[in-house]
């Protein structure tokens, strides 16, 4: 029996356990999951040719489309992965669309859908799990995938007036053989900085590549993005993001020989709501 009795055994064990307890970095879990309200104006210009180079007649009805979208989106902490990345449940609240800014508004099937966004604290997105529930008509989650960047931008730490480059990647996987990887390379400038908030502007280019094996298609994405982000200093949370993004999705259908190009233009904002989502 050691001189300290049972304490002689327990003290070293206590310190070992204490060390284990300190191993995972504390997770900054907000008291209540944040909610952002968003409003977007979208227009889509589509053109395509068949294998003979002739315009695709079936596309004629869809060459010019416009829609307005509004809704809410929340983000709740779910778990930490072994590589120290984190899982967040991103859930759409009621999402409505309209053919014009005046309406009439109708509920879209994106309402109530959720994905697990796996990423790092700095905003880098590694994976979206459950994205197949958002994809395809009439949900178009793969077209609107920029909303995940919209609420989770990769923002550099800059002093007022400073500029810096950041690259943000995000994938959208419907299945292993149906995936798209997009990147935003942007130059950020800190426009204002106070102890409470930082206002940053960005401008950059969009790039991406993907494949859709069941459709025998490959995709190439290009475009430009600009916007302004207001970050809260206290908890590094995003207060507001206004954006103007244009991307061109060029799809090459090897099976039919058709080639389609769609210009997707989005203007709008994400604004942190005073109303929080239920934990």
């Amino acid at each position, binding site marked *: 029996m050691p001189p300290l009795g049972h304490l002689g055994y327990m003290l070293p064990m206590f310190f070992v356990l204490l060390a284990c307890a300190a191993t995972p970095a504390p997770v900054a879990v907000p008291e209540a999951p944040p909610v952002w309200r968003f409003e977007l104006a979208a227009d889509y210009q589509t053109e395509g040719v068949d294998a003979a180079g002739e315009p695709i007649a079936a596309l004629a009805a869809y060459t010019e489309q416009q829609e307005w979208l509004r809704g809410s989106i929340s983000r709740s*902490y779910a778990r930490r992965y072994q590589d120290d990345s984190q899982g967040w449940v991103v859930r759409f609240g009621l999402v409505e669309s309209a053919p014009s800014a005046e309406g009439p508004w109708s509920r879209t099937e994106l309402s109530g859908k959720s994905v697990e966004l796996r990423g790092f604290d700095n905003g880098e997105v590694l994976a979206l799990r459950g994205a197949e529930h958002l994809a*395809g008509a009439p949900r178009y989650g793969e077209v609107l995938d920029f909303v995940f960047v919209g609420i989770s931008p990769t923002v550099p730490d800059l002093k007022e007036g400073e500029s810096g480059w950041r690259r943000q990647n995000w994938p959208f996987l419907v299945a292993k053989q149906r995936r798209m990887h997009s990147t935003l390379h942007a130059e950020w400038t800190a426009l204002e900085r106070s102890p409470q908030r930082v206002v940053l502007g960005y401008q950059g280019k969009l790039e991406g590549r993907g494949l859709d094996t069941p459709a025998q298609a490959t995709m190439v994405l290009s475009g430009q993005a600009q916007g302004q982000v207001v970050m809260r200093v206290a908890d590094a949370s995003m207060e507001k993001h206004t954006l103007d993004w244009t991307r061109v999705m060029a799809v090459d*259908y090897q099976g039919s020989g058709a080639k389609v190009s769609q210009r997707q233009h989005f203007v709008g904002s994400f604004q942190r709501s005073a109303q929080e989502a239920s934990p």
Partner: protein
Amino acid sequence: MTLLLLAFELVFAQGLGTRGSVATDAEELELYLSTPEIHAMMMEQIPRFEQCYAYSSAAGRVTVGEVFVNFTIASDGKAQGAYIHATKSGLEDLDACLLDQANTLEFRAHDEEPLEVGYPFVFMDAVMQPYPMIFVKERPIELLWLRLPADPALHQALLGG
């Protein structure tokens, strides 16, 4: 001992996350219902259907056949709208009993739209034979990456075949 318990509490509080999440890297977060999960939940609740066969058997009607029942799993996880898709029982009261029971099934809440599900109740000599699969109507995801509607003519022009 108090210190030891405190240390254990610290380990659990940080290691498992403050929301009590114990999901491993590979696990799904149960946002949606998968087909194997629906089948497993169906198997757990299958005993409630056996009374329908027991009643039929007790009435002296030995049955061999199949009743294919469709129902919908609402977003709150409750089954509703059960109907007979096809029946070879020849017994209306047996079919009605299966429908009544199907409408009492409970799965779990999920984020999808209501799911249409089909399950064949197969029985032999009034004993139900659990069916190894369940049929879940899948949402078609055809043209991706473009904001284009589900238009068959468009699909034909782009996808060919």
